[in-house]
């Protein structure tokens, strides 16, 4: 009887705890050792090889932002706060934190509006404008004075918007953005991760909770080593010789169909930023001179599509009074690493030199 009693009591407590968890949905991710006993990360957590990168990918936005240095940074009166959003090229694949665009801008000690510019890297390695808007909406909490949104055509196709796992696993946040700012989201998009009541229990969320816990532990290694991604000594360089393929996703030449591009996400992002100035930057890409480079610029883009995209962005920004900077060819071809948008440290320096005047000129 004693054993049965203990088992029953334990089982009851466990069930009660799970029910409470479903009802209260506590924001476990907000509890973080970062910025208290561990230094905040210089970029959002992302990692495919956690044991070596001391980093991991998770979808809990609370935990992600709680681990970022911006969450622990009190904005002082003399700080001109800039947040960078964008894809892996902003996050800094293969780059150390100090080599990224944010790192380089910070080390150049620039000022804007008579204040010291402090740049925070909120880039995240998946390419989707909707993912950028999602992160921007969180980033606005930290009162930026300027938002730099680096993007590229690859982030625009509608089919890419929910494909980012971060977006697919944050449906509720997206629906809120849809309600508040008019972001076009199909709630029935099959790409969204479905959640039933079981997924909201302690058991159902065990993986997500374990990820939050592991993120704290890897924070120790991040603090001890300064490493937050794997830096392979060797990697395949971005493709120079290209297929004679005119296609871009489902787009066929000769016209880039605007209705299949997520222009609404761009507009939503600008609404989310509100009165905070936002600069949209068409990020640099590799312009190949290899086989079939007369057809394609690089692995991502056939020339016809990219040229139309640039023209479209220029037109849209004029129509909507967006601040738009086209830096598509700002970096020389040999300063790309493993992808047509990933830069070497020197490439980032070249980009930072182009961005610096934009930042210094930006005042509310």
């Amino acid at each position, binding site marked *: 009887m*004693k*054993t049965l009693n203990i088992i029953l009591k334990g089982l009851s407590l466990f069930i009660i705890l799970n029910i409470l968890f479903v009802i209260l949905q506590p924001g476990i991710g907000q509890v973080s050792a970062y910025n208290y006993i561990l230094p905040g990360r210089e970029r959002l957590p992302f990692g495919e090889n956690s044991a070596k990168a001391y980093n991991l990918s998770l979808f809990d936005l609370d935990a992600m932002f709680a681990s970022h240095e911006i969450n622990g940074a009190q904005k002082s009166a003399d700080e001109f706060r800039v947040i960078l959003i964008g894809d892996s090229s902003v996050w800094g694949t293969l780059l150390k934190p100090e080599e990224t665009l944010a790192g380089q801008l910070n080390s150049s000690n620039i000022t804007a509006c008579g204040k010291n510019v402090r740049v925070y890297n909120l880039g995240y390695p998946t390419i989707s404008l909707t993912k950028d808007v999602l992160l921007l909406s969180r980033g606005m909490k930290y009162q930026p004075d300027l938002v730099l949104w680096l993007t590229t055509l690859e982030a625009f196709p509608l089919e890419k918007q929910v494909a980012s796992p971060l977006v697919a696993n944050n449906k509720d946040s997206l629906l809120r953005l849809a309600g508040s700012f008019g972001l076009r989201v199909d709630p029935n998009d099959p790409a969204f991760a479905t959640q039933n009541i079981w997924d909201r229990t302690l058991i159902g969320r065990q993986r997500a909770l374990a990820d939050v*816990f*592991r993120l704290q532990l*890897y924070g*120790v*290694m991040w603090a*001890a*080593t300064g*490493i937050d991604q794997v830096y392979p000594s060797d990697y395949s360089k971005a493709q120079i010789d290209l297929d004679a393929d005119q296609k871009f996703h489902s787009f066929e030449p000769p016209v880039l169909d605007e209705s299949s591009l997520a222009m609404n996400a761009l507009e939503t992002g600008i609404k989310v930023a509100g009165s905070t100035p936002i600069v949209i930057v068409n990020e640099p890409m590799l312009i190949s001179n290899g086989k079939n480079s007369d057809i394609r610029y690089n692995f991502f883009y056939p020339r016809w599509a990219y040229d139309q995209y640039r023209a479209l962005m220029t037109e849209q920004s004029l129509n909507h009074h967006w601040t738009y900077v086209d830096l598509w060819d700002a970096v020389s071809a040999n300063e790309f690493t493993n992808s047509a948008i990933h830069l070497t440290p020197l490439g980032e320096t070249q980009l930072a030199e182009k961005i610096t005047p934009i930042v210094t000129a930006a005042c509310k």
Partner: protein
Amino acid sequence: MTIVQVLIVAAAALFLGLFMRERGRLYFLLITSIIVIFWLQPALPLRGFDFWLPTATLVIIVFNWYITAPEELHHEKKNWVTLSILIGAVLLLNLSRFLPFDSILTPSRPPQTETLLIALACLGLLFFFITRLNRFNAALLSISIIGLIAFFLVLKVPALAYWVSYGIRSLTHQSLAEVKGTDLRWLGFSYIAFRIIHTLRDRQMGRLPAVNLAEYVTYIIFFPAFVAGPIDRIEHFIKDLRQPAAALGNDELLVAGQRLMVGLFKKFVVADALALIALNDTNALQVRTTGWMWILLYAYAFQIYFDFSGYTDIAIGTSRLLGIRLPENFSAPYQKPNLTQFWNNWHMTLTQWFRAYFFNPVTRWLRSWEKPLPATVMIALTQIATMLLIGFWHGVTWNFALWGLWHGVGLFIHNRWSDMTRVRAAEWATTPFRKTALNVSGVFLTFNFVALGWIFFALSATSVSWQVFLKLFGLH
């Protein structure tokens, strides 16, 4: 072992504990243990070896039972029954190769049955000839000990393991491009060797109780303790095994369950979490500051403790479900005020084994010299040699040798220091505060000494270990 494997083993123990406590208990334990050694054996790149190695485990055990058991037991009917069970179990596991799906009891598809039958026939012949060699039994005991040590060296010396794997791959026409020293991962061999050597030595000294084949095999491969100990003594194990087990009552179930849960928590929550931040070959060269290096080292110290003692708790809890009380292996070792006490409470069954079968005999032998060495030299020699051997048990590498040396020298220094200061310390520590202060400082020093020793244990290269030492003291 994964948590799923641990839970399956515990469930099997609970089932046997609840329903097989009387009739047939020994044989159920035997059969379960046989299945478990095949099931837990990791898959190996050498074709068929993940089946041959557990089979070899059983062959070695049967052989050693034969040479250690009194002659009158050899032909008892129940031992033939046990032998039939062993052969039958191996054959059945082998026949699982004909199942239309992958067998879950063997890590890969077992080798061809014809090959197994030929191997068993050859072994049968070999045994037949050995039975004719009864008069050489005493020599066979020593030969078996040497053989086990030779196997052990092959597995633990990286270069030897590499060349043996190379030879096997050459003979079996497997790719030589992928030869690795880890090709020969023989699960549980160290513990099997310890237990068998214990029985061989006790037999040599006339202390071994008479046990039948089923008891002997079950003792050696008892499934809760097969992977990570503890190393029980056969007389103690057999006593529990032979006692008619009382029904698994509430209290026993609670104690066993509690121990199991504590073990699971220690191993799969605490140790596995600490493993993410514990010192290792990769992060040793990445750490930027002295403070973080200490944190990683302490993380390692606690990780290895929780990992190992967690497994021990699991083994003890599981075996209690079966009515068998395994010995304790850890007793708050990091709370001990000196190194001697640390080693009396860390992996206790291993240190007791080395004390019984190496330290004490060597000390007696040294004392028996006509002109005995000075006591100090004798203590230094025996302590350092014992700890070096314990180091080599983990692997025959420079770093394990240094780890053994570190502790051997530490034990010797503590022995001398303790002799010199015992009286003065007792005179000084007259108040509770002073006693506590002495104890706390002892615990602090001992823990840090042990933690520093873990550097050699955690890392594989001596040069990296040295760099870690320098970093810890701000010299790098």
